[in-house]
């Protein structure tokens, strides 16, 4: 058993709570950005560009405001958990709301 296994003890309940709050922020912003891009009638590349820019912008905002630029205090490995873990899930959510608003407005 490595040394920091004893000293770096993590509280699993707090890890779960932080994940849930991050997921809430990412979900709601991605859906809204999808609606926006549908209203703007963005085509394929522009649409995905808007998703990517919006997703990264929200994550950076999240790290800045809610994690006070110290995501290490709240996430085991921040880069992975904030940017990559929910990426596919948010992408499919974005595609859904994008297609929806594109069809309704179009």
């Amino acid at each position: 058993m490595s040394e920091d296994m004893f000293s770096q003890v993590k509280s699993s309940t707090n890890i779960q709570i932080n994940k849930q709050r991050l997921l809430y922020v990412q979900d709601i912003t991605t859906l809204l950005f999808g609606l926006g891009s549908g209203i703007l009638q963005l085509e394929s590349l522009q649409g995905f560009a808007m998703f990517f820019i919006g997703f990264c912008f929200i994550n950076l905002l999240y790290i800045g405001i809610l994690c006070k630029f110290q995501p290490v205090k709240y996430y085991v490995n921040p880069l992975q958990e904030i940017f990559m873990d929910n990426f596919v899930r948010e992408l499919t959510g974005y595609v859904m709301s994008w297609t929806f608003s594109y069809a309704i407005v179009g």
Partner: protein
Amino acid sequence: MTKGLTGTRERFQTIVLTKLYTQLEPKALLELHDDLELYLHTKDPERNDGLELSLWDMMFYLKVYLSKDIEATVIYNNLRDKFGEHSPNLYLMKVTLLQINKNDTVAINFINNSIDQVLEFDTDPYSYLLLSKRLITMQNNVKTNKPDDTLRHIMELIEKFPIDPELWWYAGEKYFELGLFDQAIYCFEELVVLMPFNYVAFAKISEILYLKALKLDKKKIKNNKELFDIVLQEALDNALRSVELSELYLKGWTLILLITKQMNDKKQFFDIARENLDKITRVSNSSDKITAEYILNKVN
């Protein structure tokens, strides 16, 4: 300082989760009872069902403590009509009502019958345990009961339910009362194996080891010196582990302060402990602040 609804709800939630109400002295009990009465009758949208039920459970026992028997029976009847009789908490409430309306012997017979007939063969994980615990406490104040009778009862129950933390803690306290420090330490160590991050248990083990060391010191027998150092070192280890798990834990830092005072080569830890106690006086809640200040003055 208006804390509003969330403040009161959070406070009640902590009290009911940690069962603090069983430890309050009468004045605080009365105050808690009135506040809870008020809170339960106000509509709080964020109060979920789980919390609501446990608050009613707490209210039942508050009414029992304050000898408001009729109101307690009303609460029991509401819960029983809603959920039926067969749940651990309702069994316990029924036994409590038997205790207050009739007397302990009737309650003891009720528990014995229900265990022998039903619960031995078909029980959910909690009913058997809770009823047996209540049985032990009732048998405590039966006249013919001697201290080691209680211990024997506890050990029997522990043999049936080896991983119940409360039983081990109760056994540890009883051994400590009888002065058998080693057995008490064995029981509290069980706590630490069951709940690895339980810094309160680590502090408790450290406390008893420290008292054991003091007792050895008084005896002044020749080979006590090494034993004294070993026990003190073990006490320090446990206290350090409890503080490693919880930064602002008052009891942990106080123990380190006292233990390192006895030792001569641990000056660094003495300073760290004093530093953190000082931090507690600045940051923590009022009661911890006062105790921390008192300890710091006493030590310097």
